[in-house]
């Protein structure tokens, strides 16, 4: 059996929003210790690695490991009905394979939705080594991305020992954002060697925008022309990490 309650529905809603950035149908691994999800978007450009331990929830009950696949955009529609400080309870009826979503607070309502056939595919962690690492505020990173998105649909990220630079070149306009080590936004910076890589902003901005609701601190790691790993710090032992494949630089 599987059942959980979370006092602030917003937490759950924001997390499902983050997952919906990459996938429509999400297969969750649920076990007595908590919930995990690893998934790639259909184009296999980005991957999400997420886990929440049971301690994040106000109540959590799972007696045996199981998989549960749900249509996250449908689930979001229901969760959006919850107002501030309302609680939400999830319960899976394994016989009917339906998920019950009860929102309680100003008034009580209970929705139910079907679960889908779970995928058996195991998504491996990309094997990459990282030459640079930058710790930023999620808010500051989000702002920087919004700046460069004004001029182009992709961005070059460069990191050396001094700073992190975002460069975007569009058909008509260009943009450069510099974040200096020790500034309000760039909290920590390590570089074994200067590295640069280009990423699609349609992925990057959706990921950062949605994740910023759940996290204050983001850690970026990558090497020249290799995938980037972005870790969004979560409460307790929660984990939210994205991997994003680079674009090929043409000049």
């Amino acid at each position: 059996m599987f059942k959980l309650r979370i006092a602030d529905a917003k937490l759950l809603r924001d997390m499902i929003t983050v997952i919906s950035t990459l996938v429509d149908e999400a297969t969750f691994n649920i076990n007595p210790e908590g919930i995990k999800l690893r998934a790639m978007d259909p184009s296999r450009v980005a991957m999400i690695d997420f886990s929440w331990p049971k301690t994040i929830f106000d109540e959590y009950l799972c007696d045996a490991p199981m998989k549960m696949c749900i249509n996250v955009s449908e689930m979001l529609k229901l969760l959006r009905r919850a107002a501030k400080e309302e609680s939400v309870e999830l319960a899976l009826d394994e016989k009917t394979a339906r998920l019950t979503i009860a929102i309680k607070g100003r008034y009580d309502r209970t929705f139910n939705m079907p679960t889908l056939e779970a995928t058996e595919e195991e998504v491996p962690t990309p094997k990459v080594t990282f030459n640079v690492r930058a710790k930023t505020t999620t808010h500051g990173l989000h702002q920087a991305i919004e700046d460069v998105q004004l001029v182009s649909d992709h961005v070059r990220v460069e990191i050396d020992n001094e700073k992190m630079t975002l460069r975007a070149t569009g058909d008509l306009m260009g943009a450069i954002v510099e974040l200096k080590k020790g500034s309000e936004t760039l909290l920590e910076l390590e570089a074994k060697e200067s590295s640069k890589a280009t990423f699609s902003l349609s992925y990057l901005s959706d990921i950062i925008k949605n994740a910023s609701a759940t996290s204050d601190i983001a850690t970026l790691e990558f090497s020249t022309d290799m995938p980037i790993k972005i870790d969004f710090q979560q409460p307790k032992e929660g984990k939210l990490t994205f991997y994003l494949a680079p674009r090929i630089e043409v000049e």
Partner: protein
Amino acid sequence: MRYSLLADAYQKIEATTKRLEMTDHLVDLLKKTPPEIIDKVVYLTQGKLYPDFTGIEIGVAEKLAMRAVAKATGRSEKAIHEELGKTGDLGGTTQKFLKSKLQVQLSHELLTVEMVFDTLDKMAKSTGAGSMEQKISYLAGLLANASPKEAKYIVRTVTGALRLGIADMTVLDALAIAYGGGKEAREPLERAYNISSDLGRVAKTVVEKGLESVKKFQVSIGEPVRPMLAERLGSPEEILEKLGGKCVAEFKYDGERIQAHKKGNKVILFSRRLENITEQYPDAAELFRKYTKAKDAIIEAEVVAINSDTGEMKPFQELMHRRRKYGIQKAIEDYPVSLFIFDALYADEKDLTLKPYPIRHKALERIIQPSEHVRVAENLIVKNLEELERFFEKAVENGCEGLICKSINPDSVYQAGARGWLWIKYKRDYKSEMTDTIDLVVVGAFHGRGKRGGTYGALLLAAYNPEEDTFETVTKCGTGFTDKDLAKLPKMMKKHETLHKSSRVNSTLEADVWFEPKVVIEVIGAEITLSPIHTCAMDAIRKGSGLAIRFPRFTGNFRLDKAAEDATNTKEIARMYKGQLKKVIEQ
């Protein structure tokens, strides 16, 4: 099965224009295909996911596909649009951009036919809010994992541009060679296809169960039978000769051919092109449900628009108002229909397609409960030219296009999907279109029904023959009268009513009410035809035939200024008939 095998075969097929070579490539492909997905491969080679009659289409607009290509390649939509402008081929454009894609992936997956089919299936079935984004994401996912060549064909498939030129018959040939033991197997395969309209199912059956199972194929309720078609001959002599001196002649109604499948209370209607059109004709479906006595049946009928006041048939164009997606309820009221049943392909739990026509027709008469709006198509066994010509005139005068003459010999099976000489069309070569109004005398009337209860449904109209000083009937007119006209007609005519037909009126029709020839009204019609019923200009054009006005309409003018003897005379009508005779151009 790797999708690349399919793409390779497509490329080879595309490169040739010779049907034999095309067949060979298809044979190679089908032999490489695992039995469990042979149906999917057959549908895919035709750019489909399911047989046409299911109505499930992939249907992705080019614009949408372009967004997916942009997403999968990391190129801007603008760049794709520009390249597409040069070639007009989005498949080729996709292939080109995929060769130089800018977006790297975290991992790569080889496409299988199953993956491609399942993803396209999800796209076809995705509806409602957000379905556009979902379709783009599914397609981008396929393209991201596809080789450039695979991507080209995937894009062509989803945008409906996979034009390999593989005809149904080529697939059947290939199946015969690959799995039927040779070309001779084509015939049973073709019959199976013709009675199921489902190439995928035929393929799966021959691969998994062998040719013997294909030979046992039976019509199945829910799967449309490909319609039997008629050849055409211009002269009745040739028709009778071809059919062995006698045949059954049936009215060829000016309506839409429909195949009705009834299972218990459920009725599905298919068009001549095998589309499911049940939703456009809920009233027709209800008529089939109500007046087919058999629990399960497949019957063919012509749906014809009718004037609910007079019961007369309306031309085909009127019926086309019924082919719409919205406002169906109003269309049902504005354009009511009648059914004229002409064949039964399944009844009494038996496949009748291999039975001769007379047996099928007997079954039909047994299972149809005739009613006001459901009738067996008017038919007559004719044994000579005279009977055929007379019946033909009757058909035309009743608003039909002509006749279908059908063999009644022991070999007169239902040739599904074939145009053969068992059925022969006899249509008019000439018709005489009416351009001017004429003034006719009211000599009789028929009681109205329904909305017209208490007044007249139609008036019997006549032209004046000055030589004999008689009035010869030329048409029955029930159209063009306003409610006000209808309300005042009985009062107006009352004083002219007679107990019997006036001696000056020459009519073979029996009216409900007879009048003294006094009142003249103005009428326009669609055309003038030969008629075995009306007496106007009898023998003037052809021995034994008169003339009639087809689709007459009252213009609204009561010609109170004219005496009956001033009405248009029969010679004038004969002259109009000859003067306006034009060759009918086949559409």
